[in-house]
């Protein structure tokens, strides 16, 4: 294809997006659009898969059957979300195996928040409330992103996500209405998860390298700072109802802007965790790799069985 032809195709492509038309898998797309989508969608899928690990830690120790079935269902949803997203990603011509390889080799990233440990039951409450809360804010705008398979997967994910946040908040509420010790446990969890949850919304706008292009492709509909402010504004009143406070001495309501002002985020910590120095990076990846390698014989056996059955069918037919 000549340079002029590509230019022409690019123009048609950009116009389509401007008109809010969706891009579907077999449509022509710029290579950069394809690559950016593979990167973002697979990171998202990896986050769902690794995200099962901190919570899985508490399934056997949930304090009641009601809590246990809810947590099981939530973790199962996360597996499902990972699978929707991997298959949406595969429509761009990358194989599932490549995607797993990228995760297992440490080449691909996943959300940093899952590199923090879940040391008490209250952490399960805080994750549902804050981590799923921040995820919803990130994800709702993606339901109208330009790539069709991603947008459709996100509609399903968002529908299922709201139970996750509610079950987390209910755990926090129960603890906060319990004994003084239980309330302390909830406060401690909030202290540890608040800042990492704010970091989940991504680097500040002036430090975010992908924002401009992603906004243009509707892969992003609001900037990181806008999303973070929205998250803070809606979460503080929820903390008030619980009767616990976020660990930020600078947080205060600003009558003029109609938003909460908040303190400086420790971005050094964020980049440390992204680069692999978080408290659980090594453990998470090891667990994931072990699960994959330990399950290899099961996958091989299933494949061998399927081939044998198929051969039998052919033999019968001939």
């Amino acid at each position, binding site marked *: 294809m000549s340079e002029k032809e590509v230019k022409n195709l690019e123009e048609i492509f950009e116009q389509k997006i401007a008109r809010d038309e969706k891009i*579907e898998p*077999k*449509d*022509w797309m710029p290579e950069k659009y394809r690559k950016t989508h593979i990167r973002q969608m697979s990171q998202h899928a990896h986050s769902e898969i690794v995200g099962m690990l901190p919570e899985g830690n508490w399934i056997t120790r949930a304090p009641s059957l009601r809590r246990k079935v809810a947590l099981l*269902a939530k973790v*199962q*949803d996360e597996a*499902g979300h990972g*699978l*929707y997203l991997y*298959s*949406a990603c*595969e429509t761009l011509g990358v*194989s*599932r*195996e490549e995607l797993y390889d990228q995760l297992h080799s440490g080449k691909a990233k996943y959300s940093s928040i899952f590199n923090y440990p879940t040391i008490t039951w209250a952490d399960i409450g805080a994750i549902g409330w804050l981590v799923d809360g921040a995820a919803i804010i990130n994800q709702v705008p993606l339901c109208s992103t330009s790539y069709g398979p991603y947008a*459709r*997967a996100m509609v399903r994910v968002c529908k*299922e996500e709201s139970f996750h946040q509610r079950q987390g908040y209910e755990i926090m509420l129960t603890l906060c209405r319990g004994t003084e010790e239980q309330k302390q446990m909830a406060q401690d969890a909030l202290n540890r998860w608040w800042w990492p949850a704010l970091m989940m919304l991504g680097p500040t706008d002036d430090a975010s390298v992908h924002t401009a292009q992603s906004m243009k492709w509707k892969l992003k509909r609001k900037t990181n700072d806008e999303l973070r402010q929205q998250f803070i504004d809606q979460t503080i009143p929820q903390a008030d109802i619980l009767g616990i406070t976020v660990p930020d001495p600078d947080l205060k309501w600003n009558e003029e802007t109609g938003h909460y002002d908040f303190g400086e985020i420790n971005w050094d910590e964020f980049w440390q965790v992204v680069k692999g120095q978080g408290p659980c990076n090594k453990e998470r990846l090891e667990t994931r790799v072990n699960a994959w390698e330990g399950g290899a014989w099961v*996958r*091989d056996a*299933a*494949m061998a*069985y*399927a081939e044998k*059955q*198929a051969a039998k069918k052919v033999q019968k037919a001939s």
Partner: protein
Amino acid sequence: MADKKKNWPLWEVFVRSKNGLEHRHFGSLHAADEDMALENARDVYTRRKEGVSIWVVESKHIKASNPDENGEMFEPAEDKVYRHPTFYDLPDEVKHM
């Protein structure tokens, strides 16, 4: 095992949400065979009673039209407005038509 790793093939999943509606494409998944594809489809796509019937078909069996050829494929219908009822001029007095 042979030296080349064999991966589970890709399947497309279609779900009928309730009787009276058609099966609609819901997404895809990997499975070793058709029975496993059906079971996985139930677990991945119908955890909240989203369906009453599931079809799975191995993705390689689907022949899809090519959007680059959408012109040849779909434009012939464009100049055939006479296939639509509004093409025909009738006086307003004519009712039930």
